[in-house]
């Protein structure tokens, strides 16, 4: 079981929102559910992007990120890096 130290906030980018009737939040839950083991989904999901595009941010381990990156509905998975004011 991964500890909180093993987890890093990561972005799971799913591209555009589908045009058909779609529930982003339940889709995000279902994707996340497929890769996490033994942790509560609510505590890992940080944010859902569902108004203008599709994706979510969650606290993930390296292994979970790798699994997600191999899913066909995922465009990219990457750690939420720190940007700076310029």
């Amino acid at each position, binding site marked *: 079981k991964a500890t909180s130290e093993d987890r890093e*906030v990561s*972005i799971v*980018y*799913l*591209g*555009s*929102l*589908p*045009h058909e009737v779609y529930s982003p939040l339940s889709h995000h839950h279902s994707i996340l559910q497929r890769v996490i083991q033994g942790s509560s989904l609510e505590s890992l999901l*940080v*944010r859902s*992007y*569902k*108004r*203008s*595009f599709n*994706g979510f*941010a969650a606290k993930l381990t390296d292994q979970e990120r790798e699994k997600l990156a191999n899913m*066909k*509905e*995922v*465009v*990219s998975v*990457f*750690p*939420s*890096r*720190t*940007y*700076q*004011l*310029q």
Partner: protein
Amino acid sequence: TTRSWDFMGFHEKINQTATVESDVVVGVIDSGIWPESESFKDEGFGPPPKRWKGACKGGNNFTCNNKLIGARYYVAESARDGTGHGSHTASTAAGNAVKDVSFYGLAQGTARGGVPSARISAYKVCAPMCMAHNILAAFDDAIADGVDIITISIGFGFIQDLDRDAISIGAFHAMEKGILTSNSAGNNGPLGATVSSLAPWILTVAASSTDRRIIDKVVLGNGTTLVGSSVNTFILNGTSFPLVHGKDVSRNCTERRAGRCEEGCLDSDLVKGKIVLCDDYDRGNKAAYKAGALGSVLYNFRNTDDFSTIPPFAATTLNEKTYSVVMSYMNSTRDPQGTILKSEAINNPAAPLVALFSSRGPNLILPDIIKPDISAPGVQVLAAFSPDASISTTPGDNRHVQYNIMSGTSMASPHAAGVAAYVKSFHPDWSPAAIKSSIMTTAWPMNDSQSYVPTYEFAYGSGHINPVKAINPGLVYEASKEDYIRLLCMKYDEARVRLLSGDNSTCPIGSDKGSPKDLNYPSMGAKVEPMKPFAVEFHRRVKNVGLANATYTAKIFSESKVEIKVVPEVLSFKSLNEEKTFNMTVAGSGLPYGSQVSAALVWFDGTHNVRSPIVVYTA
């Protein structure tokens, strides 16, 4: 902004119609906003545009008004600006015109945004660090809220692929909805390939100087006066004070460390009432201030006159030449004396020059797309700030101000966003690519004479932004979502592209795939093999947005030995929005490693100069 807009010939109320402009909403993704600032008061503003879907969710004690019509925060306790940066950028893009503002008497004038009658919606993602997942959340909301233009003066600093960069992703979906994103190029110049805002759907903005330069002076005991760079608002009470070098006022550090005034090296008893010379630009101020010195003179080894910080006490920075004059004087007398004068604004006839700190191309992700795209004022810009008790202009400085002077590509991006919003107010139906094209093709040509190794277009892009001309470009290089999708097909497989587009887009295969340089971009770039012959073809189409009946002739400006051909050389339009295509070939041979040739294509109809830079370079 008390000088930047006027410097560009964009004088107050020039062609601006408040009623149309007030329909434009500028989204500012930054460190929040100071809602009580004069720059964001709503006197004379009616209710938000009917189509506005945003919300004021700024947190406790945060109130929006008819100027600041939206606020959201993703970090900290509220959308209130915790650093001053967000208020600065928001007021530069779309702040009210506020008369008689200054920074302790410096840079006095009317501070204003590019579109003073436009509305602002603030999205706070930095406090002061900015996490990618919050940046994406801000884009998600700003797009859905219905902003027209987004400015984001934030960057990662390193190169990331387009599908792993929060700003690139957010701006792509903004573009889909007709929203242009202006983004700072970064402050990692003048080294090459440091620009990190690389997506072609973003307007990437470099920083340049205006004709107002703020300087200060060091007067030595022998009467010599030297010009330094800092924004020093402190007046020393007296005419002359002892000058000491860091290495002579330390008891516990090596000579080198003490000379650089490293923290803990300066002896408080030995620096009190004296001006300390430090061989280090970064550390000197802080240490000398903490040790209780009266002032400091720092050696700026970068020799950058265009970047100046605001010291917490009387201090200035000197370049190599002037610092050595002080050192020689110190060594020539037993009792060296001097003083530092309060800063003053002088005329800078060399402007606009691209700032040395501004990040440079080429583009490491898409080498044939020239980045940055444009230059805009980003040096010593006075704009709104946060007068919060917990915020100061500089660490150690306990003064608090409503308006502050800042430098960076952060200051350039909102200038470009202000111009984009201005263009949008005249042409509400123009696509993000058309607005971007109008800004790029009407830019003033620039030079890069300040750099030791000039990088020309990779420093300033298409040139200096020209708001007055940008509303009437004559022709635009249009690009739709499908054009960008076609480009993405060159990088990603069809399944991934379909996820990105949200539709059943198909990717061309084989030779139909094309090349990134075929994107209908308003500048033309190509990376070629060193020391080999080359013949690069560019395919472009232009849309007539000037006069219905117009004939444009191609003019090539080139001092290099490359051969450039445009076919056809004349484009005749019979109606507005008519599109014509042309091909351009650039041929040559034997470009050495690390070299670059620059030229320009100008379509001219007797009124409009539609200028595109051409850059061919080697690795």
